[in-house]
């Protein structure tokens, strides 16, 4: 970490000392898998798992989707084959290449414990990692459990959690202080104005810590990405903005003293109408973002696991407007060098009318928390007991899914 005059002026000298800590702290750190990375991408709106990862060999798929079914692999605009049963949406060619090289996997027929069809309740439960909305999210609590000093750190120190984007999602709120990164939009203020404002903000119970976190994150990002990093968030399309953000997140995660856990969010999956064209754009954006993450992570990609998750899947049948309505079971995407890739995992429940959840949705057979627990356990070294109590409270009946990560 470069500690320049700006860093000193901003009161960030603690940054330079972060690597030292106390003797006890070092011992604790040595026991942790501190080089492994975990990234979670929230796909908001309810991704249609049956369009993203089409079960083209299920005899009921084409009957249920009719003209909206993805063409089979090999046909024009057809799905990208995932091994004879499932086909990936053609907008995700990058993910498909990762899958073929063993660095990406899919879990199908996934849902958290939520069984309603409200986006907002569904996202709250998913991010809370519980059977209700909590005041914070499971990823933050995982950071706090893996690096207990993060929960108490008053100043900058080495933030292990990162929220990439202008806002911090519920998933990343909680006891651990985290870093936040977004591309710069407006020129920075003069040192003098900033110093006066820092004094005012220091006395503000709500905004004081927020501004301190922001300045610490800026100083770190200046070092890791170079000053004035990245284009403004409002420049270009949503697709290019997400790619830039994912690239920056990857580079921050790659830094020697950078964060090890990151959250990103992407919308556009609530495809009630004209699904084919809307979903292609949203999936291409995700695909670009995953490629950018890999690029930014560089060599650290080998120690990384990425989870892309959504609040629910969508109806098995297409609705009346060339789209799909809110459903239940969906897919989760996994990527990264730490992932045991090249497989579609889970238990396929089938799409015949009698096999559907409430007669309309893909029946969930894997609890999303089982996937999340496996990733947190492997990447952050937390015990099953801690996972079932502190990270995903009330989930002792949900065991971490086996076989998702390389041994």
């Amino acid at each position, binding site marked *: 970490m470069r500690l320049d005059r700006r860093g000193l002026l901003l009161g960030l000298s603690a940054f330079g000392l972060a690597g030292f800590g106390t003797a006890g702290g070092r011992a604790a750190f040595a026991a942790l898998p501190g080089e492994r990375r975990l990234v979670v991408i929230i796909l*908001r*709106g309810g991704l249609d798992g049956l369009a993203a990862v089409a079960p083209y060999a299920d005899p009921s798929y084409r009957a249920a989707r009719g003209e909206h079914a993805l063409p089979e692999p090999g046909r024009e605009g057809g799905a990208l084959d995932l091994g004879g049963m499932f086909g990936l949406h053609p907008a995700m060619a990058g993910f498909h290449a990762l899958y073929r090289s063993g660095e990406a996997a899919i879990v199908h027929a996934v849902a958290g414990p939520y069984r*309603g*069809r*409200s*986006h*907002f*309740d569904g996202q709250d439960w998913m991010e809370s990692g519980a059977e209700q909305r909590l005041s914070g999210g499971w990823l933050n609590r995982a950071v706090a459990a893996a690096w207990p000093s993060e929960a108490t750190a008053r100043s900058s120190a080495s933030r292990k959690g990162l*929220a990439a*984007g*202008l*806002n*911090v999602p519920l998933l990343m*709120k909680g006891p651990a202080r985290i*870093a*936040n*990164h*977004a591309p710069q*939009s*407006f*020129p*920075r*203020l*003069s040192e*003098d*104005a*900033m110093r*006066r*404002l820092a*004094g*005012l*903000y220091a*006395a*503000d119970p*709500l*905004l*004081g810590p*927020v*501004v301190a*976190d*922001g*300045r610490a*994150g*800026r100083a770190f990002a200046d070092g890791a990405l170079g000053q004035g990093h990245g284009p*403004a*968030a*409002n420049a270009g399309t949503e697709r290019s903005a997400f790619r830039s953000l994912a690239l920056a997140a990857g580079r921050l995660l790659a830094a020697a003293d950078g964060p090890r856990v990151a959250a990103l969010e992407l*919308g*556009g999956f*609530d495809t*009630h*109408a004209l699904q084919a064209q809307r979903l292609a754009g949203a999936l291409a954006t995700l695909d670009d973002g995953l490629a950018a993450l890999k690029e930014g992570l560089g060599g650290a990609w080998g120690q990384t696991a990425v989870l892309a998750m959504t609040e629910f899947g969508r109806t098995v049948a297409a*609705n*009346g*407007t060339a*789209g799909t*309505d*809110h459903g239940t079971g969906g897919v989760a995407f996994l990527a990264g060098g730490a992932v045991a890739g090249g497989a579609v995992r889970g238990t396929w429940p089938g799409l015949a009318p009698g096999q559907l959840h*409430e007669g309309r949705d893909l029946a969930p057979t894997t609890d999303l928390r089982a996937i999340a627990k496996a990733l947190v356990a492997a990447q952050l070294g937390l015990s099953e007991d801690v996972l079932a109590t502190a990270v995903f409270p009330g989930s002792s009946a949900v065991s971490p899914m086996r076989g998702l990560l390389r041994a």
Partner: protein
Amino acid sequence: MSARDAAHATIRFGLGPRPGELAEVGRDPRGWLAAQIAAIPPVPEAVRAAAPDAATALAITFDQQRRQPEPNPVREAYRAGVGALTGFWATTEAPFFERWAMFWANHLTVSQRSGNIGALVADYYLAAIRPNVLGRFETLLEAAIRHPAMLRYLDNATSIGPNSQAGQRRNRGLNENLAREILELHTLSPAAGYTQADVTSLARIITGWSTGNPGPTAFVFRANTHEPGEKTLLGRTFPEGEEGGLAALAFLANHPATFRFLATKIARHFIADDPPEAAVGAIAARLATTGGDLGAAARLLVGLEAAWAVPLAKLRTPADLVIATCRALGDPLGDAQRLGAIGTLGQPLFSAPAPNGWPDTADAWAAPEATLRRIEWAGTIVARLSDPPDPRAVLDATLGPLADRATRSAVSGAESRREGLVVLLASPAFQRR
């Protein structure tokens, strides 16, 4: 009645004071507020003219979809219409009324992220929301749901009853998006415990509610796409036809769960993120006894002690902040600049990510980078001023007696007028309402 209350009225209830506004409010802040909600204040002709009416906006939308001309006429209409609205908000002399209307526009969110409705949203605010926010909620709900912006945004315009003429002929069917959000977001809220069957039933009830293509009327009821027969919603039966949908909306609008939900949101917006139960109960009771009279609720609100508590407990949203800043400085920005700033700070107007609208709690907005952007935007707007005013005078005219000593001292101790203004506009005190 103190000078503090005058400042409070303009910041908490209004959109932030313009130069001279605190003096106008003077010794009667409650009277100043009450006068704004006695009748619908007029909209300047230029603002109305900048926003195409619904039928014209639909024609623009269909033309854009057919020919895809550049520059995109939908985007141009959005910028003209919504840009003019920001100018109106930056100058209006009835800012409490406009905040009240903006609150309802957010409650009944439409967003150009779906349905290609950019040309329609300014008319939605001016024609569906604004004229109805002092009457019964039932009337507001009906106007909002039947406006083409909403019918397109939540896909009802193309939803077809499976057993209707069109449904039988074309093998097409329902889209339950609007029905679900009416129940979840606009009226009952999930606390009321409706089922998937109720969602589907309401979707059937409002089949046929669609838009002109384009025509003199923006709303059309298409009998050939309407699902035939009676339908049951929450145990009640609603008749076939357009009147079935009107009856269902009226039933939902006047449901006790709806009043409770609306009261909570009103109290959250005007009192605190975690509103006191007494205030929520009082507003819900007023709605229940007046048949959902929103004007009566607004009048009650002005009289609630809790709404006058200091220090100001609400965090300004990005739109609040940009409008308040423009008002404080005598509106130095153009339409495009106001619109752009609100978007870059994280709240692009009529573009919310989802139909639950923009959040109304501080924790949703007080993220590190978002807060730094607010601070830095103050520097950007002050740099644009050709003749910056005295920051101490701006402080007196905006925060007035609500300014704490530290803010006052940091502003007056700045090394230049510009820097003093930056410190004021970026201060934590200026982020509150």
